[in-house]
């Protein structure tokens, strides 16, 4: 049964992702993107990574997508049907995307996948995650994240602020 759910979920996610990139109406794309994010959250659920599924919906659907929609509303000629879907750099983008695909495919192909289930996650994984975040192993990345967020904030204010 898990396999059937996985296949259905992946098909929905991939189908919506396809519509996101092919649709001419950016707002329709935004809605499909929400479905894609929810579908990915469903895959996290299936991997028993409940916390990440919640964070996926919270951050990607709740925050990033809002940002994307506001970015769409910044674009010119939004509803002009004469704007072409391709610009002069499409072949460069295609090459980069193809390279990325090859790299990812090789990495995934080479990766040693566990043949047997790695076992149930502990019931208390959120607390363990919290402990790990402030443990000596991860405390530096953790604090660097806050610097990174601060830099993003300051940078965006500097760039976007109208004088």
């Amino acid at each position, binding site marked *: 049964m898990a396999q059937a759910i996985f296949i259905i979920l992946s098909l929905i996610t991939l189908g919506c992702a396809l519509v996101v990139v092919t649709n001419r109406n950016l*707002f*329709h794309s935004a809605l499909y993107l929400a479905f894609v994010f929810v579908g990915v959250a469903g895959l996290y659920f299936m991997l028993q990574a*409940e*916390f990440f599924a919640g964070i996926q919906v919270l951050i990607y*659907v*709740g925050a990033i997508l809002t940002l994307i*929609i506001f970015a769409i509303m910044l674009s010119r000629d939004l509803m002009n049907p004469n704007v072409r879907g391709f610009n002069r750099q499409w072949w460069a983008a295609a090459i980069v995307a193809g390279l990325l695909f090859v790299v990812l495919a090789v990495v995934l192909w080479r990766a040693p996948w566990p043949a047997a289930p790695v076992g149930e996650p502990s019931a208390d994984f*959120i607390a363990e995650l919290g402990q790990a975040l402030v443990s000596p192993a991860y405390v530096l990345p953790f604090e660097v994240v806050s610097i990174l967020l601060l830099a993003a904030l300051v940078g965006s204010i500097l760039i976007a602020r109208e004088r």
Partner: protein
Amino acid sequence: MDWIDALLIPAIKSLVVIVVLLLAFAYMTYVERKLVGRFVRRYGPNRAGPFGLLQPIADAFKAIFKEEVIPTEVDKWLYVICPGIAVAGSLIVFGVIPVGDSFMAWGRKITMVVADVNVGVLYVVAMAGLGLYGIFLGGWASNNNFSLLGALRSTAQVITYELPMGLAIASIATITGSLRFGDIIAAQKTLPLIILQPVGFLVYFISGMAEINRSPFDMPETENELVSGYSTEYGGIKFAIYFMAEYINMIVMSILVATLFLGGWQGPFAHLSPLLQLVWLVVKAAVVLFVFIWVRASIPRVRYDKWMKFGWKFLVPLGLANLAVTAVVVALVA
């Protein structure tokens, strides 16, 4: 784990929850109209049936049989689908909230929750963001300046007030040590969290009212400036569905406040019967709902820019301070 446990019982639970929520929505509109009427010395609905009790049913029939008008200028696909997204988004939040402990029926132990997951509170906060797109994209699809403004306001308001809400929830989690609703309710066995977290409660309550667009913070549909906000171009069943989403959000929010701060289904004698637990939860939620309506009837609407300023410059710092103080106090006590 046979198919009855795996599929039938959760399916029945889901259906029961959704039907009860819909009935609660119908009579919530009646109670609100009646109460607001009494607050300003009117009668409120009193024609359909005794005391106007059949009014919600009349409204439902009116919405279903009303002629469909889809304006020619709208983005038709989004226009049709968005009310559905809004109401589905508000319904699914309820899936993780326990309305009682558990009871035995036909030799099976039935828990009174669809799924009490580990990340319950996080799930609620995250899913609430999903219904927002129903409102935003619906307002955008209407192709109407005022609808778009209402939609924009709704988005900005919800994202702003999500932060203090998250901070209040984090303060709760430092005390309860869990994000699961079952654990949070169990932690309030002796003392409801409202006593330990009065500031957190206030922050949560205010941002909760903002999240569900309740008056005096109903910026997306300020009828004296934006006509009817995002729902201006909607009519018939689609408008009814938007309306439903709004009221179900309100009911869910009241139950969340009752569960997170007022002890949920716990109360004197609640361990005697699951029915009594349900009654306690309903009573607590009803009190919160009454306060929502009371506030609406008493307080004039705030101005939008001041309201946003209040969120960022008062509620967020207050939530941060509350979290820091809670953390220090918990550390001192432990």
